[in-house]
């Protein structure tokens, strides 16, 4: 089969070794595609140089949408479309609207955040994830390096990985 994506994988046993390896590999100018680990490794995001997610901004915007939607809906329904006297209050009185407003804010914020996350992470139904090495779901950390993004060839990158503490260096082609 003609493969168009070629990766070199470094397999690591220990997260401390992994953290230092990420630093030294990046220090030598090699671009890392992604690191897969069976559990969250503290500090991995920082050494990989990842920027913080902008998901909170999306959450805020979705939340504000929920707030406005709830207020508009209730004021229109109870103030204009079908005014009813309830407990002698004004038709459109703010305090009783607040629980519904709160709930819709939380609901839209949460659902919007999940939807944004799925879209940004490219997770959709019937999309089969690329598995570099199944052991990354068990007891190994896998560092994947995309050959297309790097000027160095396969053996040079393999040598760098070995040097920084990788137990194995494997190829993976999709």
């Amino acid at each position, binding site marked *: 089969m003609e493969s168009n994506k070629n990766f070199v994988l470094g397999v690591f046993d220990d997260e401390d070794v992994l953290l230092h390896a990420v630093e030294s590999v990046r220090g030598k100018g090699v671009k890392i595609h992604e690191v897969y680990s069976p559990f969250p490794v*503290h500090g991995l995001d920082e050494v990989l140089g990842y920027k*913080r997610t902008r998901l*909170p901004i999306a959450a*805020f915007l979705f939340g504000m949408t929920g707030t406005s939607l709830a207020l508009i809906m209730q004021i229109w329904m109870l103030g204009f479309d079908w005014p009813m006297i309830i*407990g002698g*209050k004004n038709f459109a009185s703010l*305090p*009783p609207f*607040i629980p519904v407003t709160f709930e819709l804010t939380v609901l839209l914020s949460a659902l919007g955040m999940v939807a944004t996350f799925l879209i940004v992470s490219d997770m959709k139904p019937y999309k089969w994830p690329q598995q570099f090495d199944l052991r990354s779901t068990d007891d190994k950390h896998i560092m994947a390096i995309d050959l297309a993004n790097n000027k160095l060839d396969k053996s040079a990158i393999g040598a760098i990985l070995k040097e920084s503490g990788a137990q194995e260096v494997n190829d993976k082609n999709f």
Partner: protein
Amino acid sequence: MIAEEKYEFSATAKKNIMILGVLGIVLFIAGVFMAMNSGGHGEEHASAIVTSKLVASADQEAAAGHEAAAEGEHHGSPVWLKRIYTSLWQNNVFFTGLGIIGLFFVAIQYAAQAGWSAPIKRIPLAMAHWIPIAGVLMLVLWFVVKADIFHWTHHDLYEEGGAGYDRIIAGKSGFFFWPLEAGGFPIFYVLRMVVFFGLWYMFFVWIKKEMLAEDINGGTAHWTKARSLSAIFLVIFAVSSSIAAWDWVMSIDTHWFSTMMGWYVFASWWVTGLAFITLVVANLKDKGYLKMVNSNHLHDLGKFVFAFSIFWTYIWFSQFLLIYYANIPEETVYFVTRIANSPYSWIFYTNLFLNFVLPFLLLMTRDAKRHMSMLKVVCPIVIVGHWFDFFNMVTPGVMKHDGGFGLLEVGLAMIFMAAFLFVTLSALAKVPLVAKNHPMMEESMNHHI
């Protein structure tokens, strides 16, 4: 492992606190003179009429009529003196909260087996040194101000058939006077005050003893002991803080009652205490202390202030919405007096703005909680905001339409703040600033969120 740190209560800090206190005294005296010369008796009778109009049910009409009559007959102390009494009581309740929240914070950390807070626990512990002072002040002050602040202390309310008889208050007499006769000495009430402060002080001494013994002996035995003590204290505090709120705050509006009041006072105390702890930590870091406290610890403190500002709002709203929606006159009168009259009305809205809108928007982002610059803006706002919250809990019930907010109130608040800061900081300087052998110090050093 950790360099030993000891806080030095510098001469400059002492001088600044002294300036705050002296300025407070000057403002207070100026405020008293202004209040003495402004009078304000003409409004008092009008206010009684307005209040009685708002009250609709038959029971309440009689009661309000009695209140109006009582006010017409004996005015009690002059308005300016009443204002001083009210402000003293309000400040003492507010700062009692700051002290007891210090102990509560420490106890929560032990009970939750929290590791992150290990290096900052000495600051809330220092705040708790205010408890005995607050207790003595509260007891002495109560005997001075009772006739003016606590309407239920008047014995004629309980004389059946008498002109001043009040069926509603007489029905609540057991809560104050049991087992003695209604209208006499409120033994049950005073006993509660003494017992609560006594229990709080005892647990403070015990927990402090374990924390300091740990510095010398090491090991985990002291930590375990402190945890058991904390767990017992939390149960006691849950009950006592709630009843204290009824006693010291809710009984001022004797006719009125709210099942949310215990939570409401606690929420207000708690978020103020958290803001105060955060502010002290930020300022100590500025001075070069607490080197091992980093932005992760600040983040946790910021989250506390943010979350409990929202929690307080939730409690505030839960109380307000039910009363607003049910629209029962004997309950709505509480909010009517606070929304319709100056100065309570602007404080009513300012309260929500300072304690919900500003902390909510300013502390929302992650960066705001991790950097001291924003925390140093929001924490004073929250502290001042909750001082206003207590102002509106205490003052309208006592002063009715004569209530004022001016130099007198500001001055007294400054005096209390200076005293509280002095006690806290001098207690902080007496012991090592960071616990030496805390079993969770290592965990706290590697805290990462």
